[in-house]
């Protein structure tokens, strides 16, 4: 793939705008609240688009196209089962607690609801996870640019990290969120022409259906048995593992996305943020998954385009989207396509860094090191955390480049930590008897349960490091099972310990649990401004999409 002068000009124009946003937002940043929380003054349409854009990183844009090529339209489960219901739950049931408690972060909510040790556990693991995720995103960006454009690995890392650092340091969270929205439009408009032209060449959806195996174009028909579909996952595992544990665990408790709703102007806007975000989210498979199906169908029908082959002889599915962009886009649009890929990596990285600096400043530094310093001091700490967050991300990117297996291991361990979190939140918000000791030890038990499940079972040559009791049909089925075991262990442990420890009084829990929160304050009168009717519309449309691609 060769870029022309105009393509480089488009990339430069994009860099100019992202840096410009940081420069102009800078004059509005005066306090730590401005820098880390956007002063809770961001309009609803921006928080909604930022909510999904923060998740629209490299793993989604490149990874979902790859999964589309490998697994077909079943990949849409990651949206229609694995995201939308959880986003609805967050908007309708959980945002009132997050926003109403005035907590500045998810770990801070845990401190208010439970205790400091539960907050500390969540804050430290989350801070580490965001740094490693940011570093992996950076590594993936540099690797991709080296592969498809021949750009120098080191230069790619330094330029991308430098730009994210500059605009995040200048304008804080507002700058990152504004850039995420710009990046969202760029990603959609930069990739959509590939889908349009690809569909035109293959003969529309019917052309894809005619040229691929039926299992690639049905989302539910082959879910009865794990052996019947390429994911190797059955319907129960999909619904419980992805649709409940992993999905709700991520969308309802991960501060990276929840933060975008928490900076809305008021409770109503905070609740509607994930609900409005659900509309574009449900149609994202058209942009990020369809290219994968298109390239496989084109390979089958015309042979005009070919996925690269890896050293082991298998297809390099991660190259599905870049290959199509290189195949179709002329000079000009090629610059837009490459800029869209750059935007997706930078969006993911900035999202992680801004969540990291908030959690570090409020939940680690202010809580455990300097509880009563001035606001100017916390503003400085927030900025320092941003710089160190980026530096650690760069270091992580180089570690990933040297030891791929270490990154796999880290992601696995963090998966163990993340999976049980939703059980803690679910019980904490809906059962006032849940205690701080129970929440903490429930999380620890859930994490150990996940590790034990991984050690006792295996799939695709991974796991079974204690001894192998069971063999799963795929790595995905394995990870769903680990999540289910982890969640269940945390859920049961938390209930049992709660029954033997002292709960907080009703006065202490007011506004933090469902039964002790006033829900009569809804002021909106128009139906589309109310969370419940919006939620029903979202769920109805999602059901319709599932039926269309059944």
């Amino acid at each position, binding site marked *: 793939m060769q870029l022309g002068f*105009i393509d480089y*000009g*488009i990339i430069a*124009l*994009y860099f100019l*705008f992202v840096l*410009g*946003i940081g420069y*102009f*937002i800078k*004059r*509005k940043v005066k306090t730590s609240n401005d820098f880390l929380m956007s002063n809770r003054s961001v309009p609803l349409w*921006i928080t909604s688009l930022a909510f999904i854009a923060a998740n629209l990183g490299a793993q989604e844009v490149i990874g979902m196209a790859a999964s589309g090529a490998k697994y077909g339209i079943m990949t849409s489960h990651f949206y229609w089962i694995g995201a939308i219901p959880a986003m609805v739950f967050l908007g309708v049931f959980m945002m009132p607690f997050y926003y109403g408690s005035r907590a500045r972060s998810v770990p801070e909510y845990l401190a208010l609801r439970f205790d400091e040790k539960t907050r500390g556990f969540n804050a430290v693991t989350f801070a580490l996870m965001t740094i490693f995720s940011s570093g992996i995103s950076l590594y993936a960006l540099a690797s991709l640019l080296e592969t498809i454009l021949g750009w120098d690995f080191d230069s790619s890392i330094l330029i991308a990290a430098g730009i994210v650092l500059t605009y995040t340091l200048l304008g804080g969270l507002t700058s990152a969120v*504004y850039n995420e*929205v*710009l990046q969202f*439009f760029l990603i959609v*408009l930069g990739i959509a*022409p590939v889908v349009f*032209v690809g569909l035109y060449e293959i003969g529309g959806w019917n052309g894809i259906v005619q040229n691929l195996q039926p299992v690639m174009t049905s989302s539910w028909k082959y879910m009865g048995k794990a052996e019947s579909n390429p994911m190797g996952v059955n319907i129960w595992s999909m619904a419980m593992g992805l649709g409940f544990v992993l999905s709700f665990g991520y969308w309802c408790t991960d501060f990276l996305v929840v933060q975008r709703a928490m900076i809305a102007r008021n409770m109503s806007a905070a609740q509607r943020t994930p609900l409005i975000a659900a509309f574009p989210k449900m149609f994202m498979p058209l942009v990020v998954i369809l290219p994968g199906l298109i390239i496989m169908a084109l390979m089958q029908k015309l042979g005009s385009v070919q996925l690269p082959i890896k050293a082991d002889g298998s297809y390099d599915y991660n190259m599905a989207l870049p290959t199509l962009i290189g195949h*179709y*886009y*002329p*000079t*000009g*649009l090629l610059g*837009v396509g490459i800029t869209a890929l750059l935007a997706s990596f930078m969006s993911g990285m900035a999202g992680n860094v801004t969540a990291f600096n908030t959690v570090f400043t409020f939940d680690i530094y202010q809580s455990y090191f300097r509880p009563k310093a001035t606001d100017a001091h916390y503003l400085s700490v927030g900025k320092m955390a941003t710089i160190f967050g980026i530096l650690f991300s760069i270091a992580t990117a180089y570690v990933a480049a040297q030891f791929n297996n270490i990154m796999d291991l880290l992601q696995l361990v963090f998966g163990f930590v993340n999976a049980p979190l939703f059980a803690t939140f679910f019980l904490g918000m809906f059962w006032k008897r849940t205690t701080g000791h129970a929440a903490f030890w429930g999380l620890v038990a859930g994490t150990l349960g996940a590790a034990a499940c991984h050690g006792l079972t295996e799939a695709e040559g991974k796991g079974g490091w204690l001894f192998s009791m069971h063999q799963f049909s795929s790595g995905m089925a394995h990870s769903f099972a680990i999540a289910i075991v982890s969640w269940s262990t945390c859920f049961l442990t938390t209930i049992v310990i709660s029954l033997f420890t002292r709960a907080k009084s009703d006065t202490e829990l007011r506004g933090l649990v469902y039964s002790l929160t006033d829900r009569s304050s809804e002021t909106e009168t128009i139906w589309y401004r109310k969370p419940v009717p919006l939620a029903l519309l979202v769920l109805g449309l999602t059901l319709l999409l599932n039926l269309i691609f059944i």
Partner: protein
Amino acid sequence: MDFDRFTDLRFVIGLFFAILGLLLVIVGFVYTPTMAAHLLNACSGAVMLVLGLFMLWLSYKRPL
């Protein structure tokens, strides 16, 4: 120039896509060798230009 406009995201997005769209339309008409390339650049550019102008119009119609 009113620099406060640059803190209105509608204006920033509008300006970015108006410039990008215009650039692609021009490239589509004067720089591309094949009909397919011409159509791709021109049509994509037109869509971006429309989005950009719409966002600019919104930012002027209802200023912050």
